[in-house]
């Protein structure tokens, strides 16, 4: 199941308002901002995870994915740009 991060009604970023403990059913209500990582698309999240698991090596990740180094670096540059924008 995919976590919704954008309001389907007005396109604003959603806030986390309820957290529930699966074990004892305790519910916490509040208004927590959505972490930047969760505001990325599932593809972008997967890319970040793969990059992390490749020890942050574009070269190694490019070899694993079977695509060229510049293609991967460009994707990473775009993602860095998006994350910087989300942080503002």
């Amino acid at each position, binding site marked *: 199941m995919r976590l919704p991060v954008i309001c389907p009604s007005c396109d604003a970023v959603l806030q986390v308002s309820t957290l529930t403990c699966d074990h004892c059913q305790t519910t916490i209500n509040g208004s927590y901002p959505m972490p930047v990582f969760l505001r990325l698309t599932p593809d972008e999240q997967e890319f970040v995870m793969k990059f992390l698991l490749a020890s942050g090596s574009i070269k190694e990740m*490019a*070899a694993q994915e*079977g*695509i*060229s*180094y*510049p*293609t991967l*670096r*460009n994707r990473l*540059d775009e993602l860095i740009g998006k994350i910087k924008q989300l942080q503002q």
Partner: protein
Amino acid sequence: MNTTKALFSPLEYFSDRILLIAGLAASAAGLGLSVGFDVAQDGIFDLHIARLPFQTHLLFLTGNILLTALGLFFIGKIINSGTRLIDMVKVGMIARIPLYLAIPLIGNKTMISLTERLVKQTTGNSLPQLEASDMALLLFLSLVSVLCIAGFFVLLVNGFRVAANAKKWQHYLLLAAVVLATEVLSKFLYTKMVALL
């Protein structure tokens, strides 16, 4: 993978190892074709019929690849500091593949004799008399040559776009200026170097 897209922008879809092997193999084939058909690659995107020694063909080919790579790398660094020379070398090698395909067409005996006949006729006062088959052949060669040059530029521009992450129209203007400058520089350098050989 979209096959058409991969064909026109290989740097985007294939791994570094495959691109390097394909580039080196294509360059070796291009050199072989140049020597075999007596077609000199005496410019970044020039092909001329000329009987030359092997080392001159080798000089032209390596010169073309290196000058293209260095020119692209120079502007690539201005656009994006992460640009690598090796990627531009790969672009320089891969982009020449369509030009290699034109070599057998330009350097085959039928085409050479047709060109010689045409040159002989044009040196006189009368207009050249061409048979329909000769006209068709010339038209075919012209069309294929244009397609090969177009293919060279498509691969060059797409390769540069990926290797330097070029996005703005100014980047492409810069690319056009560098390609023209490299062509002029190659002509100048080759004339000097051939005189020394």
